[in-house]
């Protein structure tokens, strides 16, 4: 139902594929695109399923796997690297007990890496859902993660 509503906002032309996929993923509480989503998009936009799959797997913002409630994206581009993003990454892996591209068993966190977030002035930085956290230290990360766990 929700899916049809999203599709109807767009003309059925192929150039709307990225926008359709964005909206479907945003509407999903598990932040991902299901196989049904891809098929619905393909049908509506009159594209082969394989083509839609190709697009969905090309761009890093789309996921075909369910993701946790909090999507943590750690910037690993050179400016953040220079100011210690590897330490930050290791600390997150240690605190969460999962690696990059993985979700914690309680489905609370998914850890991902991202290219430059454009907030290099406060490097090292990460983004959790829509919020950016900068000037990260081990202590600050522990605080943030703890805060999000407690918010449950």
């Amino acid at each position: 139902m929700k899916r049809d509503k999203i599709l109807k906002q767009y003309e059925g032309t192929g150039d709307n594929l990225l926008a359709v996929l964005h909206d479907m993923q945003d509407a999903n509480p598990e932040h991902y695109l299901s196989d049904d989503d891809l098929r619905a998009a393909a049908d509506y936009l009159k594209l082969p399923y394989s083509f839609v799959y190709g697009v969905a797997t090309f761009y890093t913002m789309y996921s075909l796997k369910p993701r946790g409630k909090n999507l943590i994206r750690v910037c690993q581009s050179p400016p953040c690297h220079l100011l210690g993003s590897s330490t930050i990454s290791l600390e997150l892996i240690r605190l969460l007990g999962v690696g990059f591209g993985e979700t914690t068993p309680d489905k609370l966190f998914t850890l991902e890496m991202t290219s430059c977030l454009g907030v290099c002035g406060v490097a090292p930085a990460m983004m959790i859902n829509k919020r950016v956290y900068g000037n990260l230290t081990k202590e600050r990360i522990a605080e943030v993660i703890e805060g999000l766990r407690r918010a449950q």
Partner: protein
Amino acid sequence: MSVFRTHVLLPVDEGTAQAGVFEVKRRLEKELNARQLLDEVKVLESGSVGIVGKGVILAVYPDRIYYFNVREEDVPRIIDEHLLKGRVVAGLAHAPIATMGAAKAAARGAKVGLTREQRRIVLDKAWTVDPENIDEVLAAGGYKGIEKIFTDKIQPEAVIEEIKRSGLRGRGGAGFPTGMKWEFTRKAPSAAGRTASGGEKFIICNADEGEPGTFKDRLILEGDPHRLIEAMTIAGYAIGAGRGFVYIRGEYELSIERLRKAISQARKYGLLGKNILESGYSFELEIRKGAGAYVCGEETALIESLEGKRGNPRVKPPYPVTNGLWQKPTAVNNVETLANVPAIMANGAEWFRKIGTDKCPGTKVFTILGHVEYPGLVETDMGTPLREIIFGYGGGIRGGKKFKAALLGGAAGVFLSERLLDVKMDYESLKENKAVLGSGAVLVMDEETSIVDMLFSIAKFFAHESCGQCVPCRIGTHQILDIIYRVRQGKGREGDLETILALAEAMFRSSLCPLGQSLVMPVRSALENFKDEFAMAIGHAGKS
């Protein structure tokens, strides 16, 4: 519009939002209301001022006083002392922005800091108006460019001529003359395409800012979205396009939201849409959101993505000016390039030519990052020496350490050593020194930085972002990463450095697009300028 005696500006960006700018704003409005000052003092959210890491920033105009690290509890003091009694709150305030340098000069004997005087064209309004209020933008001189074009009935060819005479060059990195690009697009015959009807042309704004260390376009979009709308309308008129697209990276939520609001306001005011300002010219502008792919910053990949496909770059030629979006003639311009256009049309090409250098007129926005005292962004004349950017605006190396290297232009950039600190930052001067201006990012590294480690980070970035379409880039980026990884671990072998360079050079010659072609720049410059460090890393110090 009512007249306020004082404006209080609160720059909003990720940094200040995190530091609590909205809490400060709420408190400010509450306290002003309690003192019945709301019709005298106007509080507004502005775009970022380019100063980062200083918490909530609060600026008082016309006094030009800046308060850094403002907390909610400071608000009553600022109101009672400054806004009521006109006394700057000592201890909280920083010197006025233009004379900040002078204040610091006394202390340090030099002009330093991001708050020293800049020359702002593209960011001129980005921190003095509320970007979500078109009335303020208009009052501050917005849309003067199109007003002039349509009132004086300036023909499209004359607009192109003016831009050509101004010497404006693309700010995305390549430095191609903008007027020429527009002329090619205007003159290109438009054959009937596959999807759209014949005779169409398009203007696209490349706002897929992904070059590591670059956030100039984000600040323009967040701070003054109306400038971009005006620029796109002028560009569309000049090349003969009725539709324009702004392709923004998906991560830039605030930019998208601000531009969306600005578009609907402009439409309401007749500055966009059908028959703009009764000129007979109609122009529609759409936002398209990217989905996370660095390669889409390359213009043909961006066009593919806009068509709803994987962002695989096309083989050039043909170029977008003849075969662009849906194979129609298309001009693709960077945000910063376009942002110069309204001012050029309003003030004339001669005015623009007086700024910057002879071959690169105008200003450039630089982002200063890494081990500097004041990381952030400045807009200053093209041709400003690198030393002034790092030590003047950036305040020098933090923690009293020594300068070691600067990476110019992002990941697809060049490592410079101290020897080139006095190079002028413009396309020509940098080219003479085998460097590039790129996006204008200046990543500064202190004496303790390992260049091997930095090159590893760059190789990792390229390996991750290669789209995989062409073999040299897909395989080459990973081969280079593997070798540098080994060298970084202290397991380098003889010949490794020669192999890395040979691979990067082969990629330069045979890759399809600039992504694969540009890895040679950081690789070669790092190996040449920091030869000993690499030799040491593989245990052959002194031999070469």
